[in-house]
């Protein structure tokens, strides 16, 4: 075997290694997008449930109760494409609860309020982690070699949700 043949073999081996490496990297990233979304999803569901409970357990005025319970309901039922918008509406209406929380006469259940602020903090974190995973996956999928060899397979391109964590 002469030098060129050896070189060709080496190059083929390297390309093969690089392709498997990239594929497993991408697989890992997709997996992370899924798990981080699952976490975020369950936290959002929980938040909606807490919102419902707050309405049930406290003597809020009918308008506020109506607003919160409808937005919580909408957030729970929303299809994936309307999800982030529905959640933002819920965040906005829950903000009202926070503002009136100091009013003693309303008899707001304080445990639920603490739980709500706890879960809000966790949601912020989860949004951060999810967006990070999505960005990382999208960045890698943009690479030429991954597009040419179709290493992403049939996995859908992760979607960047417009969650506004500053309204939380």
């Amino acid at each position, binding site marked *: 075997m002469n030098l060129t043949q050896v070189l060709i073999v080496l190059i083929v081996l390297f390309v093969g290694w690089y392709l498997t490496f990239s594929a497993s990297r991408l697989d890992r990233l997709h997996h992370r997008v899924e798990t981080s979304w699952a*976490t975020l999803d369950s936290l959002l569901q929980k938040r909606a449930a807490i919102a419902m409970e707050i309405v049930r357990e406290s003597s809020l005025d009918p308008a506020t109760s109506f607003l919160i319970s409808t937005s919580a309901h909408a957030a729970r039922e929303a299809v994936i494409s309307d999800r982030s918008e529905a959640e933002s509406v819920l965040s906005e209406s829950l903000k009202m609860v926070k503002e009136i929380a100091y009013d003693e006469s309303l008899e707001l259940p304080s445990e639920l309020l603490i739980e709500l602020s706890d879960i809000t903090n966790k949601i912020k974190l989860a949004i951060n*982690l999810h967006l990070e995973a999505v960005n*990382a996956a999208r960045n890698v999928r943009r690479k030429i070699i991954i597009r040419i060899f179709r290493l992403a397979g049939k996995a859908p391109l992760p979607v960047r949700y417009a969650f506004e964590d500053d309204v939380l």
Partner: protein
Amino acid sequence: MKKLKIGMVCPYGWDSPGGVQTHIRELTKHLQDEGHQVSVFAPVSDEERVNESWLVNAGKPISIPVNGSVARVLFGPIASSRVKQWITQGDFDLLHLHEPAIPSLSLLACSAATGPMVGTFHVSSPKQKAIYAIGPILEPIVEKLTARIAVSESARQTLKDHFDTDAVVIPNGIESSQYSSAQPTIHWRNPHTLGFIGRFEESRKGLQILLDALPIIARFVPDVRLLVAGPGDGDELIKKLDIGLRNRIVFLGFLSEQEKASFLKSINIYVAPNTGGESFGIILTEALSAGTPVVGSDISAFKAVLDNGEAGLLFKNGDSADLAKVLIGLLRDEELQQSLSSKGKLSSQKYDWQVVADQILSVYEMAMAGNNKVGLISDSRFWNRR
């Protein structure tokens, strides 16, 4: 929350002083107090100086120059196999890797392991050229971290610049009760005493700026004194000083943790004239929780800690005339000192370990959402599967 088995990796020599080591030691203590099991894996240069039962020795560190100072790190094939052994034996729920982008144990652990991993980035530095060469190699490794924490906004910016990923900002923690309940030392106490702590021989710590401001301050506040603490040769520095200044300055040398708390409680104003290269400024938060007013340079890390001038005063970085002006104003205004003291105490509460460790635990919880344990990547390759 269920009790976790956490594997923590320290990239730097455990028995040499440093912010990362202190952070890990205190975080570990807190997690253990809450009932979690923690094992810390770190390089150790002198086995006899280490007495923690939860520390696993990774071997002797080697010294390499990083960022203008010397870092004691450890890597190589032997270290790498020890990392794998530690991960296998530990059977951890989660790995917490500190400074995973530095060529040391954390990076080795990150590349060897799979499963829930959290990385904390401490360093903040301007973008370095070397990163262009090694970035593409590091990126797929750093990317494996399930969640990233940066200790400050500037550390987060550094991470963004270097790796194009984002992080959650969780500040360094302090034992605030240690500072708020410290007893002042009588002979350090004097009506107009300024304090400075740090390796004062390093120019980026900015002692020279404070020394330049001192003659101006002395003209308006005749009995002003300056106490300087920290490792270094004080005599050498005194010789270079103006005669009129010499009796105003006292060098105390290196202080123990307890002495430091008492020092911060005794002085009137803590001055932080650092010119840059600071990622967080933990000493500022310690002074704040002792209830001592703080004056710091307006570098971004200090601006963040001092709530943009709300919790402490800022002066123009590197400008000793401005520093003198701010200090004279504060020394003469006791009401302002009082109000800064109470505001500072309040704002330092968010740096207490009680709060910080809780935040870190919620990151752990998120990272473990996938419900699998930490393992080795080599075990999941198909020829190794059983």
